[in-house]
């Protein structure tokens, strides 16, 4: 009965909001990644490898 109550309370809307929010965010991230030039990506990827090279 609790379940039926929650079903009729119109709360599915919240789930839809969540899904839309996720899709928007995901789209934005993909767009951002596609905008990244290969050089930018490879520069970024090398950051962990650079840190010791400059040791005196």
């Amino acid at each position: 009965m609790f379940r039926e109550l929650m079903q009729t309370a119109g709360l599915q809307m919240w789930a839809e909001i969540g899904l839309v929010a996720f899709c928007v965010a995901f789209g934005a991230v993909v767009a951002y990644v596609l905008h990244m030039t290969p050089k930018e990506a490879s520069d970024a990827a090398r950051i962990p490898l650079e840190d010791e090279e400059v040791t005196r």
Partner: protein
Amino acid sequence: MTTTSMQTVRYDDRIVRWFVCATVLWGIVGMLVGVILALQMAWPAANIGEYLTFGRLRPLHTNAVIFAFAGNAIFAAVYYSTQRLLKTRMAHGALSWTHFWGWQAIIVSAAITLPLGLTQSKEYAELEWPIDIAIAVVWVVFAVNFFWTLKKRREKHIYVAIWFYIATIVTVAILHIVNSLAIPAGLFKSYSVFAGSHDALIQWWYGHNAVAFFLTTPFLGLMYYFLPKAANRPVFSYKLSIVHFWSLVFLYIWAGPHHLHYTALPEWATTLGMVFSVMLWMPSWGGMINGLFTLRGAWHKLRDDAVLKFFVVGITFYGMSTFEGPMMSIKSVNALSHYTDWTIAHVHSGALGWNGFIAFGMIYWLLPKLWKTEIWSKGMANLHFWIGTIGILLYIVAMYSAGVTQGLMWRAFDETGRLAYPDFVETVVQLVPMYWVRVLGGCLYFIGVLLGGVNMVMTVLKSPGRLEDTEVQVPAPDWKPDVRISSNIDDTLNSLEAATKSGRHRLLEGWPLVFTVLTVAGISIGSVVEIVPMLLVRSNVPTIRSVTPYTALELEGRDLYIREGCVGCHSQMIRPFRDEIERYGEYSKPGEGVYEHPFLWGSKRTGPDLARLGTKYPHLWHVRHMEDPRSTTPPSLMPAYPHLLSNTLDLGSTQTKLDRMAMLGVPYSIEEINDAEATARAQANEIADEVVAQGGPDGLADKEIVALVAYLQRLGTDIKKREGGASADLGGQ
């Protein structure tokens, strides 16, 4: 500031060394407790005394391995890699050391209070309120230190590992604070402000995300830094790492309700949890693929490099558990796996395989760097790897078979339509051989960890006496926008323009604040959507009129149930399945939980469900069963609790407890609160007299056992009352 002059940076390595040592030390302690627990499951005589029974040690084990072992490993990783990725020393030494010693003090207080039975009983959030406050304070110290370092950085781009750390820091803070909201009823006693299904939802929103943001995101950050270092090549795809990060953070936060399938939680919430959990599979495997492919062209190094071996197998276990997790969140699979050892297999493939191996891989990589010497024994490190791997395999194979066996036995019907194994203990006996295999697997893994400990100590001993901090030359940051509000409007605008010109792509990472806000937004959307509707409809949880608050004595008994950690082996949540209703009785209703601060649904049925236990047995049966379960049920694996029959029942704070419950909305009248102690005494005398009348021992009226019996006899009886009284209804229909 346009020419690239060089600057000298000295990294704080000392703090990292201390965190590494703490990781190994607590790893040994936490896993030793784990081995003891495994033994107690196979052989109940290993429950020794009052303080070291299974129920009290289990939270010690989980807290020690999660927050002490994995926690210190995370901090070691964060302190080592953040300084290097941002090309700056940690912001403030005093903050680092406050963080270190504060965290260790919290661990020690956990190790003392949990065996004493001081617990809030919510899984992975058991510590009582004063310690909870200390955790919040130390976490804030860590956060200030971290974000301050971020602000001081010389590297413009924030490498993806740092993103994972940011997500960890902000999310853990939010989770911890919300889930720990409780009202104190004494220095070491508190009640959750949430009750029943609300409390359950908040707890598993927390619990699941503790896995996500304590055991996953920081370890992924760690992987993205240390794996490229160890393999000496950049991560396979940086772009993939970004997509992986954002989808993980957005999706994980929704997945919590999958822990509550078929319980008194609304359908849409658990369906949401299921859908998002299944979607999680993709980013998780994105991470795994990215990790494994980073080793492209370096596979031959695996032969004698223990570090890479640990990483590769660790990442593979990550892939396995993130495939299995979404699978288990599918309702029909969950119907079988929930409450069984299958879950235990799942978490240990994650904890031992992913967290443990990644942490040890990192430690073996760090040891020579931090102590400026070769590792003492490479052979021993390799042995650690192999013995650990065999240990994990034995462990999980045993637990998978135990889980599936028990799940199938519970739901089996014979041809006459009756339960094939009506006696719960029949299903327990089947598991004992597998529990022994687990002991063996656990011991092997533990021996591996001990070898790691020896290797570490020997490496430290042969390090050159004085260890200087690593000193490096790094380019001075010429990218830092020098935006100043000057009296001259033109100057201000010029500097602003220069700041934005530096590229819109990197604008996001250039602004840690914006980034942090986005992360918070990401996780908050999920949390709010999941939790708020539930709280909003609070008034809609159908109150069942025959459900009334516990009597003073029953409440004390409930607190004993909490103290002894019975919830670690017993659920109080009957799912609406034919076999469960047949076995235990009417399925659990949300309205039955309205006064349950905290909820005690449990997540594992080593023993039977107790939701409808009341009146099933006479008082005397319970007294004898608690004194020694083998006396009533010879093959039982339950610990004996003889101390409940000798400890004097303390009713000193009963009145305060009722008062606090009343503050949380439990309808106790002023008289009930004021007379709490006297009423409890009267009920205790009644029960003690009945025990004597049934042929039991005399003199139990002022012992703890009567309170526990009062509570057990009350369980699930309220809704039966309605059958007699016409006044009650289930509501909502």
